[in-house]
């Protein structure tokens, strides 16, 4: 059944303007109300979709059909938002929010988005979604802590889910679930493929990776070249990933009887082996260490 206290949906809110006894001399206010309720509706749908994609099915491989449908929905919303310019507004709002990073100590809900202009995509805005919701006692029970090294240092904003306007989900090129960083932020590398994570619905540990390619959630089902990450912090995070799994020979010898699987298929099946061995506890721990480290930098202590 539907949970109690569900936000009124668009179909219900459609009745609002009519019931409100509005002044006929101000039809625009009705339109504005309808529009903003539509925007809120759309925004909440976007949030919900991104959370769904993040949901961590650690044990069983998630349903690809469901993920594809949710991803398509997110893409559709993002396109619509780009068209009516809402995207721009949110981008700016978020940049402002980034500057004043608020930490909610008890909840540690880190919802981050990094907006970045890239030279290669001539003025087109590329946004990185980090709908990372990591918390102690967050009702959604997801622990995804995401951080990113952006230009000029780490930007991190902590936003509570009740303030959807400051939450900017981000792009399409969307990648709510992330893979490991390839180290070089400005690297223009279409084929820089990062190792996929265990499932597209979020391992707890996600590093956002700067990529301008349309990187999607199903990127996790595909492995690409395991890119070496020169950054020592990242090295530490991925130190427990057994590199031998990326050795094709090892895999091939183990799969002699596989009938139709060529090397490409094997690579794919390796893909989700990437960060998946990282259990949530170890990754959260290392994430929190990183977080502390980064907070120190920001605070300048």
């Amino acid at each position: 059944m539907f949970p109690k206290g569900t936000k009124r949906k668009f179909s219900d809110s459609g009745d609002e303007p009519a019931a409100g006894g509005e002044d006929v001399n101000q039809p625009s206010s009705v339109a504005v109300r309808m529009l903003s309720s539509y925007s809120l509706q759309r925004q909440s749908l976007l949030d919900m979709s991104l959370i769904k994609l993040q949901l961590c099915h650690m044990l069983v491989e998630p349903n690809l059909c469901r993920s594809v449908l949710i991803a398509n929905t997110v893409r559709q919303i993002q396109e619509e938002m780009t068209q009516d310019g809402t995207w721009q507004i949110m981008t700016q709002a978020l940049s402002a929010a980034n500057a004043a990073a608020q930490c909610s100590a008890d909840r540690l809900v880190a919802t981050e988005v990094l907006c970045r202009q890239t030279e290669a995509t001539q003025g087109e805005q590329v946004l990185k979604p980090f709908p990372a919701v990591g918390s102690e006692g967050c009702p959604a029970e997801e622990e995804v802590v995401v951080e990113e090294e952006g230009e000029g240092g780490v930007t991190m904003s902590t936003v509570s889910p009740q303030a959807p306007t400051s939450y900017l989900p981000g792009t399409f090129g969307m990648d709510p679930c992330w893979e490991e960083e390839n180290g070089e932020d400005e690297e223009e590398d279409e084929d820089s493929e990062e190792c996929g994570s265990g499932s597209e619905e979020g391992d707890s540990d996600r590093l956002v990776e700067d990529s301008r390619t349309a990187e999607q959630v199903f990127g996790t089902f595909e492995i690409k070249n395991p890119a070496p990450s020169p950054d020592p912090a990242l090295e530490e995070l991925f130190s427990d990933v057994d590199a031998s799994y990326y050795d094709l020979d090892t895999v091939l010898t183990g799969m002699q009887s596989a009938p139709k699987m060529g090397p490409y298929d094997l690579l794919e099946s390796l893909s989700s082996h990437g960060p998946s061995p990282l259990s949530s506890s170890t990754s959260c721990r290392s994430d929190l260490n990183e977080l502390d480290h980064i907070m120190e930098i920001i605070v300048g202590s």
Partner: protein
Amino acid sequence: MGEDTESSKVNHSFLRDYVTEADVISTVEFNHTGDLLATGDKGGRVVVFQRETVVGHKPKGELDQVGETGESGEYNVYSTFQSHEPDFDYLKSLEIEEKINKIRWLPQQNAAHFLLSTNDKTIKLWKVSERDKQPEGYNLKDEEGRVKDISTVTSLQVPVLRPTDLMVEVRPRRVFSNGHTYHVNSISVNSDGETYLSADDLRINMWHLGITDRSFNIVDIKPANMEELTEVITAAEFHPHHCHLFVYSSSKGSLRLCDMRASALCDRHTKLFEEPEDPGSRSFFSEIVSSVSDVKFSHNGRYLLTRDYLTAKVWDLHMEKGPVETYQVHDYLRTKLCSLYENDCIFDKFECVWNSSDSVIMTGAYNSFFRMFDRETGRGVTLEAWRETSKPRAVLRTRRIYTGGKRRRGDVGVDSLDFTKKILHMAWHPEENIIAIASTNNLYIFQDRVSPDTQDPDLGSNTI
């Protein structure tokens, strides 16, 4: 299953509500004669029911001569076996569920019955056979099978077959593994009796029933760059008569008919069935609700039946531009899509079935309701598969959802629908009007009883 249905006076509700996850039925299928009914569950078990041959049961067509009602045989448990075990994919560090996604029977060729069952990754061919005789009187072995001391053998005897109690043996005959990277959602036996297809989210393979170490890949929609993936395969089926034709459905609501004679890899369809989207009704959920969850050829091979979230559609194989019939299964949910998206119900995959003469289609809904549509009149009825309201042999009453207007007694309001009670899996007997409906861990079998007084068929129930 197998619970006492007569104890309706005792309040067993607290026991009933406790459903073991492993007992949830995940697939139901009649064999080609309808004498056997197989169910698969989330725990990887298969239960086969057999219709009992009742003395005096006359074949279809002579029903009116047998007493006041045509008393058909009931279905009783014939065999139970563990088809799939939980597995672990070591490369991906992910569990492989043992849940049986689909069961398909092979046409019977000898005394034994064969069925294919599949979980997410592996398909198995099982042989179900009866043994009611046993050889006795071996010379070299005694009755327990121990080797006799040669010196005690003084004469030779010829072993004879003696009747014993009926035993049903189930043995795995083939295991078709490592064919799929993604989750297998469909299997379909070809009319040639030798091959079958298995479909996962991105690929369809064709196997020979006798060869387990290789298969042909006949459809591959995996993009070179997974980031471009926007569509997956949701169901696939061979044509009932033409061994070269098969159809597969996608998450975008399209159906593709492929001819294997055209090329080895059928990535290019022969026909594409797609209904143009109504721009006026577009919403964020349009694509999700258009995703086809099941596709079935009609028995005569001329039509396709598809189910998407809100409707069931009948397509004519000769007309690609749209369905010839559209049936609203639960249109009252159209305004609730956001909530259904939130609680994930919008991703539920309902099955749909034809009756034997292709004149009626049936599909499931929520609140233990299922719907039947008569194609000739276009009328639909809502029926309920719920123990509280149906005793054995009771006649099923039609139900109504209250969506406005005059409310009648017994109408159910949309907001009081129980979305955890969903009828996803069902089967229709290939020749008679007997249907099997799976509702979580219960299997309901309803039979059509044509009463001699009127021509209206009622449905009697038999709960297992």
